[in-house]
């Protein structure tokens, strides 16, 4: 099911009467193609969960529309939208067994979708098998581990075959190892069912690793939509560039002068045909190549060996942040008492942003 958000806006009234309204979601426009896995990514408090609630129908938008396919569902209550929702804390009914939890949505079906007991049982088992918890049907939620509870929650959301599956921070309650495993699992389940899936996360790595598309948002606004690699390679502004990628992108104060990118007194790259202006120069950690004749001179701080790669930590007077982190091949050798390190830059790993607007130049 294709999901379209059209000028979607949600304001919450301010707590004190004179204060301004809080705009949680500000004029959203995007289209989610059928059958894809979408990561809704942004720092906490940016309106991700509100967006999810607007899609599920738990919140009503102040203005704008939500479309499922050709159907306008903006004014439909959640139960009429056919969405499955997985909560951050799973919200499994603690007094019901796993099977009863999964069957719960089926028992609510009315009219010609109504099922017999056997059908429900079969359907629940089928879904449980999909998420691999069919051996735990008689347990109560508190007798399950976090990962198993997560699967039950997904099964409960999937059992009535929703048109759209929504997951709110699905992995945040799991430990690191389980998180890796579960995210692969999520990807597999989504592929097998083909249900259009939207999940909310503040973890960029999580979003990039499994999504078909990521939507980067901040302060209630969509900043960029695209395939993970595209967004990483072509960030539209400084925020997106800084939000994606670990280690973070290195940002320098710089300027464009006479067709060259200057950081401090050094021309580091060609920028022919660009008008002179002050810019932020963002350089991805993998964009540095150690070169004794390189234009960018940094003060050496330390070298962290990571096996295949080496992380060079250095400083520069024009940098923002605490240090510059560059990832280079471990074939490079550094002398222990080396005071400076010089780099050449890979042009496609360097992004220029306007100093004022922070938009990509």
């Amino acid at each position, binding site marked *: 099911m294709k999901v379209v958000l059209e000028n979607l806006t949600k304001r919450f009234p301010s707590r004190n009467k004179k204060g301004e309204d809080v705009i949680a979601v500000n004029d959203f426009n995007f289209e989610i193609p059928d059958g894809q896995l979408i990561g809704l990514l942004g720092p906490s408090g940016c309106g991700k969960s509100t967006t999810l609630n607007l899609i599920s*129908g738990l919140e009503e938008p102040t203005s704008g529309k939500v479309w499922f396919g050709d159907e306008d569902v903006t004014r439909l209550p*959640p139960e009429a939208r056919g969405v499955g929702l997985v*909560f951050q804390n799973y*919200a499994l*009914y603690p007094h019901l067994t796993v099977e009863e939890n999964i069957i*719960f949505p089926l*028992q609510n079906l009315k009219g010609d979708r109504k099922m017999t007991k056997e059908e429900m049982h079969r359907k629940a088992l089928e879904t449980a098998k999909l998420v691999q918890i069919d051996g735990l049907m008689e347990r109560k939620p*508190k007798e399950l581990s976090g990962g198993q509870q997560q699967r039950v929650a997904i099964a409960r959301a999937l059992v009535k075959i929703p048109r759209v599956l929504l997951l709110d921070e699905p992995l945040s309650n799991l430990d690191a190892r389980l998180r890796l495993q579960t995210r692969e699992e999520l990807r597999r389940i989504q592929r097998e069912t083909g249900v259009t899936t939207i999940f909310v996360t503040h973890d960029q790595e999580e979003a990039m690793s499994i999504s078909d598309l990521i939507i980067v948002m901040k302060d209630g606004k969509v900043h960029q939509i695209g395939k993970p690699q595209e967004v990483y390679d072509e960030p539209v502004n400084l925020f997106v560039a800084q939000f994606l990628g670990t280690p973070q992108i290195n940002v320098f104060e710089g300027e464009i002068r006479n067709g060259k990118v200057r950081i401090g007194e050094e021309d580091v790259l060609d920028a022919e045909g660009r008008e002179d202006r002050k810019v932020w120069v963002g350089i991805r950690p993998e964009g540095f190549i150690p070169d004794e004749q390189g234009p960018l001179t940094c003060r050496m701080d330390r070298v962290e060996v990571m096996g295949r790669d080496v992380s060079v930590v250095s400083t520069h007077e024009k940098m923002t942040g605490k240090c510059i982190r560059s990832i280079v091949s471990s074939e490079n050798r550094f002398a222990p008492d080396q005071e400076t390190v010089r780099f050449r830059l890979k042009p496609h790993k360097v992004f220029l942003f306007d100093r004022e607007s922070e938009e990509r130049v």
Partner: protein
Amino acid sequence: MKKKNNLKAWLYLLPAILFLGVFMIYPLIDVCIYSVEENYASIARTYTGIGLGNFRDVLSDRLFIQALKNTFILVAITVPVSTGLSLLIALCLSSIKVLKKAFQTIYFLPYVTNTLAVGLVFMILFDKTEYTKGLVNMLLRTDIDFIDGEYWMKMMVTCLYTVWIVMPFKILILTSALASVNQEYYKAAKVDGASSARIFRKITLPMISPTVFYLIITGFIGAFKAYSDEVALFGTNLNAAGMNTIVGYVYDMLYSDTGGRYGNAAAAALILFAIVFTITYINLKFSSNKVQYM
């Protein structure tokens, strides 16, 4: 070292043990002893024999049977009605937004009002005197004697009174129980398409079942101990009104004109204890598989 600590512990416990011993354990044992001493004379402190004579006396006493019947009717009506109504009101209170605090206060008022003051209000509502038919009669355009008339009319007023008196506490407890249910369950159920009735039955009720169960148990115990409400409505001579209760009977045996019959009072008190104990036991057994402790 260990012995010393032991001594210290007992020393700390001493005040409580003394109080409980003097005011609870000793009287309890005493009641048991009184109940089997036949024809105990309180002034001479003599008795004619040990046996179950007191119990026989009590159980064959017409007044006790009447008190027993009254008490059972009261319990059977007021416990379910007050619990059910309280749940309904608590549900309404937790779903309204405007004036919530004001309504909560209003519903809690009977709890802090003196029983006898409430009795006075009920008199104004129901009592028929030479000057007035009472407010309820005036409103209903009837002419029923609620206080000195037919048995069931009196019983109805009593039940109404009891229900009204016990509800505030139940509403308070249930409102807080409802507020403590995680809202996400409701959201999840709503997305899953459950109707409000089903959400209540399958989610709300199981979630607050420990509280409901607690209220039912304490409700039973409280209702079996009914006495002051009846006095507030019908005065101290409850036998004349035919509205005596078991506790009232015990009181009569001790202090009324026919009083001083300690043995009978003790026997009646123990019978009440046995009844409450049995009902509570049945309650616990019956509900152990219905109540969800999360």
